[in-house]
């Protein structure tokens, strides 16, 4: 592991595997937990593998498992799924600029294995590493997909013999999201938007009684963030020095990923 001195002759697949490794590692416990849940909900191992490959999203699979255990009707599961997955329209839009000019089938493949986690890793790499292409991003997605599917299969197989606290294991996903929030905390305005989102998310989820509240709070908070930023940009000449938009210094540094390199060189 010579991460500090990148070897120029290192094959792309190996470099990408290294990039995907932290995600792959965190997918193992979550995937196993998900496999156990699906097993408890009545899925056999083959169907578990199929759902992992076709609906590659931890949240979606947890939703299927939990709705099946409370005997929800098929239609209501599918509708809930649609609202849960609606947020990917936003992620897809935000990552789409890196896919310009790609073929139809590339886009199909990319869309199938796009999820919160692969999006977070790929968006970070695509926006900070010039050598990182959409092809590399797809490879990262596939590594994650393979690890995830194998983990859910393992979970499905051990499901009957193991009893672990599933709510606790579900926290792995929450931890992943918290990590992504921290990685996005680049300015005071972003921190304020986080606080605003907390209020909006609670309000709209209580009001709408569904994950659609998530979509509304996300849309609203991101709109407000965008409007405030544009307002500052148009009203202050030195907006990069503005207290709200000034970029934070990175406390631990990032030897591998070179965060914000473009933005910080003014």
């Amino acid at each position: 592991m010579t991460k500090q001195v990148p070897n120029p002759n290192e094959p792309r697949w190996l470099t990408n595997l290294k990039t995907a490794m932290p995600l792959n590692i965190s997918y193992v416990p979550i995937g196993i937990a998900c496999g156990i849940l699906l097993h408890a909900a009545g899925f056999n191992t083959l169907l578990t593998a199929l759902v992992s490959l076709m609906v590659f999203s931890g949240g979606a699979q947890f939703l299927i498992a939990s709705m099946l255990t409370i005997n929800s009707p098929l239609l209501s599961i599918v509708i809930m799924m649609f609202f849960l997955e609606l947020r990917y329209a936003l992620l897809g839009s935000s990552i789409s600029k890196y896919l310009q000019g790609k073929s139809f089938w590339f886009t199909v493949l990319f869309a199938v294995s796009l999820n919160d986690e692969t999006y977070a890793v790929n968006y970070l790499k695509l926006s900070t590493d010039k050598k990182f292409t959409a092809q590399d991003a797809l490879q990262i997605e596939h590594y994650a997909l393979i690890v995830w599917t194998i983990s859910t299969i393992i979970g499905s197989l051990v499901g009957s013999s193991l009893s672990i606290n599933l709510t606790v294991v579900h926290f792995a996903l929450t931890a992943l999201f918290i990590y992504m929030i921290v990685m996005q905390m680049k300015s005071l305005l972003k921190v304020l938007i986080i606080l605003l989102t907390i209020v909006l998310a609670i309000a709209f989820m209580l009001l709408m009684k569904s994950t659609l509240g998530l979509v509304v709070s996300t849309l609203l908070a991101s709109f407000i963030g965008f409007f405030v930023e544009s307002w500052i940009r148009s009203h202050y000449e030195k907006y990069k020095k503005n207290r709200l938009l000034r970029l934070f210094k990175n406390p631990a540094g990032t030897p591998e990923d070179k965060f914000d390199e473009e933005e910080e060189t003014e």
Partner: protein
Amino acid sequence: MEWNSTQHFWLIILCFVVAFIPRFVPLAFFRTRKIPKWFNEWMGYIPIALFTSLVVKDLCITSSYTLSVSGKAPELVAALIVFIIAYWTRSMALSVILGLAAVLVLAVFI
């Protein structure tokens, strides 16, 4: 009602369709068009708002969509720990693994 494997299979197919459409349509739409600058700037705020909403849902919204943190003390403390670890180490693997360890240990003691 007990589901059989055929019903599970159709459930997966239907879920695939509703999961695929919102992922594919924006990608396909913007693949061949010029994306306006304001749109990209707006999209820059999507990840932070989305992930915050998801964490809020995990930590303090119950499955019947009421606000409650009862019984969530281990998760809440562990969330704080993950936050600090993520901030200082910037390592995804460390954040997740130590976060899981924290919540497992805290669940025993709280």
